[in-house]
C-alpha cells in the first residue's frame, strides 16, 4: 500500500485474501500509506497489519520479498501513488515496495498496479504505458456502474473483485455483467 488515497481498497483486498486459506499475504505500508489508512478507514495501522500473514517495514530492503529467490505469485500495489508508479517504471525504487515490484518485473511475475489519480498528465500516462508494455497490469480504481452500486462498499467490492480476477483467485462477492437486462421500466415481467 502506497501513499495515494484509496486505503479502503487495500484494506478490503486484505480482508478478502484472509478468507482464502491457500493465500499467504505479505504487506508493506509506506509512510504515507500509514497516514492515509488512519484518515480514510478509521482503522489503526496495527489493525490493518493484523489482516496480513507477514508485515514488512517499508525501509527493510533485507526483507524476503526483496529477493527473487523468495517465490511469490503476484504483487498488487493498491493504492498506487504516482511517485511509486514512477519509481517502478524507472527502476529507481524508493524503499521496499519499489524493490519488490522490481523483483516481480525481473522474475516475470504478475504485477498489478492500482493507480489512484485523476486527471492524468503525460508523465503519469507515459509511465503507465511503459509498464503496460512490460507486462504490468494497470488497473485504475474506476467504479463500474453496470452492476448498479448502491453504497460505497459496493464500489470498493467491485474494484477488489477486478483485482482478484487479475490474480486468478475466487471473487466470492463479484457482481458481474451478464448483458443488458430485458426488463425495462414500465415493462411488466413476462407472465410466462
Amino acid at each position: 500500500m502506497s501513499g495515494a488515497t484509496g486505503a479502503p481498497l487495500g484494506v478490503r483486498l486484505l480482508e478478502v485474501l484472509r478468507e482464502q486459506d491457500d493465500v499467504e499475504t505479505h504487506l508493506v505500508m509506506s509512510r504515507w500509506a500509514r497516514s492515509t489508512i488512519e484518515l480514510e478507514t478509521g482503522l489503526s495501522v496495527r489493525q490493518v497489519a493484523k489482516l496480513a500473514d507477514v508485515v514488512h517495514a517499508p525501509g527493510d530492503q533485507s526483507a524476503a520479498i526483496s529477493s527473487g529467490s523468495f517465490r511469490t505469485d503476484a504483487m498488487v500495489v493498491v493504492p498506487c501513488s504516482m511517485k511509486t508508479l514512477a519509481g517502478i517504471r524507472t527502476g529507481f525504487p524508493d524503499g521496499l515496495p519499489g524493490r519488490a515490484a522490481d523483483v516481480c518485473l525481473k522474475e516475470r511475475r504478475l504485477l498489478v498496479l492500482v493507480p489512484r489519480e485523476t486527471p492524468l498528465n503525460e508523465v503519469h500516462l507515459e509511465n503507465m504505458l511503459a509498464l503496460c508494455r512490460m507486462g504490468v497490469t494497470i488497473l485504475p480504481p474506476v467504479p463500474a456502474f453496470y452492476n448498479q452500486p448502491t453504497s460505497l462498499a459496493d464500489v470498493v467490492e467491485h474494484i477488489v473483485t477486478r483485482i482478484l480476477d487479475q490474480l486468478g483467485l475466487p471473487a466470492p462477492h463479484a457482481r458481474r455483467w451478464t448483458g443488458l437486462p430485458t426488463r425495462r421500466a414500465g415493462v411488466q415481467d413476462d407472465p410466462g
Partner: protein
Amino acid sequence: MPEQRRITLAVTEAGGTRLAAGVLRRLVSDERVNHVDLMVSANGRKLLAYEQGVAEDADPVRVLLGAGSDKVSYWDPEADMAGPPSSGSYRSWGMVVLPCALGAAARIAQGVANTLIERHADVCLKERRSLVLCVRETPWNLIHLRNMVQLTEAGAVVYPMIPTYYNVPQSLEQMDDEFVMRLLGFIGLDQTDRYEWGSGGSAALNDGAGRSQPVP
C-alpha cells in the same frame, strides 16, 4: 463577469450517466454558461435507458435534467453529423465527454470522426479548445494507454472517473458530488471549496459525518 460560455457535453457508451446528469444540471444552472450542446451516442442512449430506468427513445435532456431546458440543444450524434458543432466556425469553449468509452477515445485519438461526438472532439483539438475525456474502464490495455498518451499529446485531458477517498465520503451521493464539483472546477467553473485539501483537511472532511465505520 467573464464572458458567458457555450459548452458541449457528450455521453458515450460507458457507465456512469448519473454523473453526466450531475454535470448537466450544474451547467444549466450556472450563469457563467449560456448554452450547452448535448450529444448522446446511440449506445449511450441504451445505457442511459438502463441506468436511469427509462425507455430507449426518451428525450435525453429530460432524462438527464428531469425537465426540458431552453439552454440545452440536443444533437443526435449519428443523425446530426453536419450539425453546427461539426464546424470550428461554431464557437464553443470546449467539450467534456462523460462517460467516455475507450472506443470513443480511440476514435478521437485516431481522428476517425464517424459521429458528431468524434467530429466535435476533432474540432476541439484543431481549434485548440479544451477537450476533457472522463474515461470509464479498468484495467487498461496497451491500446487504451497508447491512445490516452496520444490524446494528451494532442492537447486533450484524460480525466478518469476515479473517486477520491481522502475526504472520507459517507455515501455514493457524496462521492459523485465530489467528482462533479472537481470536474467543474477543473474546467474553470468553480462551484465550492468544500473539497479543497488544506493543512486542516477539507470542509467535506471536517464537517462530514466523520470517519467511515471501522471494519469489525
